[in-house]
C-alpha cells in the first residue's frame, strides 16, 4: 500500500465543498442582504450623525454591520457545517476514505474563511461604493470643502475590510475548536458567542493586569490575556477615522497575530477531533 501523506488537494476539496454547501444554505446571501440593507439604510439616517461627518457616519455604520453580521456568520457557519456532518453521520463516509482528520478540520476552516472573505469583500465594496456615491454628491454641493480632492481613503477602507476578515477568521477558528469536541451545534454556537464577548473585552484583562497586586491574580489575568485574542486590535477603522495612517506593516502585524491564533485554535481542534469517538 502506498503511503498517504497530508494533502493540500484534499484540504482544498473539503474547503470547496464546505463553501458550496454554505452558499447553498443561503446563510451567506441572507446575511449579506440584511447587512447591505442596514448599510443602505444608513443613508436615511445620516441626519442623525451626532456631530461626525456624514462620510464617517456611513463608514461607522458599514463596519458596524460587517462586525455584527460577520460575527454571526463566523460563529454559525463552522458550528453548523462541522457539527452537521457529525450529526448526519456523513463525516463517516469522508473519513472512511484515505483522509486525515487534520485535513477535514483544516478543510472546514478553509471553506469558512472563504465564505467570510466573500462576505467581507462584498460588504466593503458596497460600503466603498456608497461612500463614493455620497462623496460625489457632497463634492457637487460643497465644492469649496473638497478643493483638495476626495477625502475618503479607499485604500485604507480596503485594509479595514481585510482587518475585519482576519478578526472573523480567528473567531471562526475558535468556534471550530469548540465544535470539534461539542456534542451539538447549539452548544458550539453559544460557546462561540461567549468567546466573541470575551475577546471583545480582552483589553479589560490587560488593564486589570496593570492594577492587580496578588501574584496568583496577575498570573490568571496574564493567562486569560494570552489565551483570548484581543479583538479590539482589529478595529482599525476607528484609527483611520481618527486620522491615523494605516501602514502595510500594521496590517502585516495583525495578519501574523491572527494567523498565530488561527494556527493554535485549529491545532487544538485537530487534537480534539483526532481523539473524538465518531
Amino acid at each position, binding site marked *: 500500500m*502506498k503511503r*498517504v501523506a497530508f494533502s493540500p488537494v484534499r484540504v482544498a*476539496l473539503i474547503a470547496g*465543498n464546505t463553501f458550496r*454547501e454554505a452558499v447553498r444554505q443561503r446563510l451567506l446571501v441572507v446575511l449579506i442582504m440584511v447587512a447591505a440593507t442596514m448599510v443602505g439604510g444608513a443613508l436615511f439616517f445620516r441626519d442623525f450623525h451626532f456631530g461626525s461627518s456624514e462620510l464617517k457616519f456611513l463608514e461607522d455604520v458599514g463596519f458596524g454591520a460587517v462586525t455584527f453580521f460577520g460575527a454571526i456568520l463566523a460563529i454559525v457557519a463552522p458550528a453548523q457545517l462541522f457539527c452537521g456532518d457529525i450529526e448526519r453521520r*456523513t463525516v*463517516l463516509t469522508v473519513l*472512511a*476514505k484515505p*483522509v486525515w482528520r487534520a485535513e477535514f478540520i483544516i478543510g472546514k476552516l478553509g471553506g469558512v474563511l472563504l465564505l467570510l472573505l466573500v462576505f467581507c469583500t462584498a460588504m466593503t465594496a458596497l460600503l466603498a461604493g456608497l461612500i463614493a456615491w455620497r462623496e460625489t454628491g457632497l463634492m457637487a454641493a460643497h465644492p469649496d470643502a473638497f478643493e483638495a480632492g476626495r477625502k475618503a481613503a479607499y485604500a485604507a477602507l480596503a485594509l479595514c475590510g481585510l482587518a475585519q476578515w482576519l478578526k472573523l477568521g480567528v473567531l471562526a477558528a475558535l468556534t471550530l475548536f469548540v465544535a470539534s469536541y461539542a456534542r451539538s451545534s447549539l452548544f458550539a454556537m453559544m460557546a462561540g458567542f461567549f468567546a466573541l464577548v470575551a475577546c471583545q473585552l480582552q483589553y479589560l484583562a490587560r488593564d486589570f493586569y496593570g492594577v492587580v497586586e496578588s501574584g496568583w491574580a496577575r498570573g490568571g489575568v496574564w493567562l486569560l490575556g494570552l489565551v483570548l485574542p484581543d479583538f479590539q486590535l482589529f478595529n482599525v477603522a476607528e484609527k483611520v477615522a481618527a486620522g491615523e495612517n494605516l501602514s502595510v506593516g500594521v496590517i502585516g502585524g495583525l495578519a501574523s497575530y491572527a494567523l498565530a491564533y488561527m494556527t493554535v485554535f485549529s491545532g487544538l481542534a485537530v487534537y480534539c477531533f483526532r481523539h473524538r469517538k465518531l
Partner: protein
Amino acid sequence: MHAIEIDGLTRDFAPDWRGAKVRALDGVTLRIHEGEVVGLLGPNGSGKSTLLKIILGLLAPTAGQCRVFGVPSDRVEARQGVGFLPEAPDFSPHLTGFELVCFHARLGGMARAAVKERVEEVIARVGLGEAMHRRVGTYSKGMRQRIGLAQALVLDPRLVILDEPTCGIDPSGAAEISTMIRRLKMRGGTVVLSSHLAGQVEDLCDRVVLLDRGRLVLQGSVAELTRRRGQAALLVDPLPDGTLGELRDWLQAHGVGFHGVETPRTALDRVIWDKVGRGEPAGAGKS
C-alpha cells in the same frame, strides 16, 4: 490473502462521568478472505457498528489488533480501496447527487479527467441516472441510500462495508441493492454486510458471523449453519388424494422416518418484487 484480520479485539466505552465501563466488543477474533461476502448479524447493542468502525479506523480498539489488507486499521493507508455505506446516511441536502459522488471520487484520489465519466457510470448503475443533477434534499429515502451506495462504489473498492444497506427501503429497492451486492461478489469484491435481516444475509452471504453482547458467538457458511442435520426434503407436485398415506407407509416400510408435510412458501418480499417487477423509479419525488 485476508481482506480483514481481527485478533482479540476488545473495545470498552466509559459512558458517564463515573467511568463505569461498558464492553462493546469482547475478544473478537475473525478472518475475512478476499472475495468473500460476509454477513454480520446480531441484535441491537451486540457490537456490530463498533466492529465496523474499528475496521474503518474510525475508532481505536482498547485491546487487540485489526488489519485491513495487512495494514493496521488505525492507519490512513488501510482505507485505500475501502468503500463504506453507513446506516441511513443523511447527505447534505444542498448538493446534487452528481456533485456528492464527484466529491467522494476526488477525495479518494481519482484523477480529475476520469471523474465525470466514472461518476455518471456508477450513478447510472445504482439507478439514479435521471436524477443525478437534482439536489439530494429532493431524493426519497431509497434514492439517498442508492446515492450512498454510489459514493461507496465510485472508487471501485476491493472491500465494501455496508451497514444496514436496505434499512427503510421498500422491497423492490432492497432487491435492487441485493442485486448490486451480488454483482460485487461476481467481480471478486469483498463485502461485509451488517444487517438485522437474517433472510437477506442468508440470500447474499457466503459466511455469517453472529455477535451477541460484544462476543462472537457463531460463525460459519450459510449452508453449514442452516442445514438440518440427519434430514432431507423432497419437493414434489401436489399429491392426489390418498397418495400421502401410501407414501408414508412406503417410507416407514423402508425404515425412513416421516416427520410431516409442508407447503413450500415464497418470501413476501419476493412476491412483492415479482409483482412490481422493478425498483423505485429514479424520478420519484420525496416520500
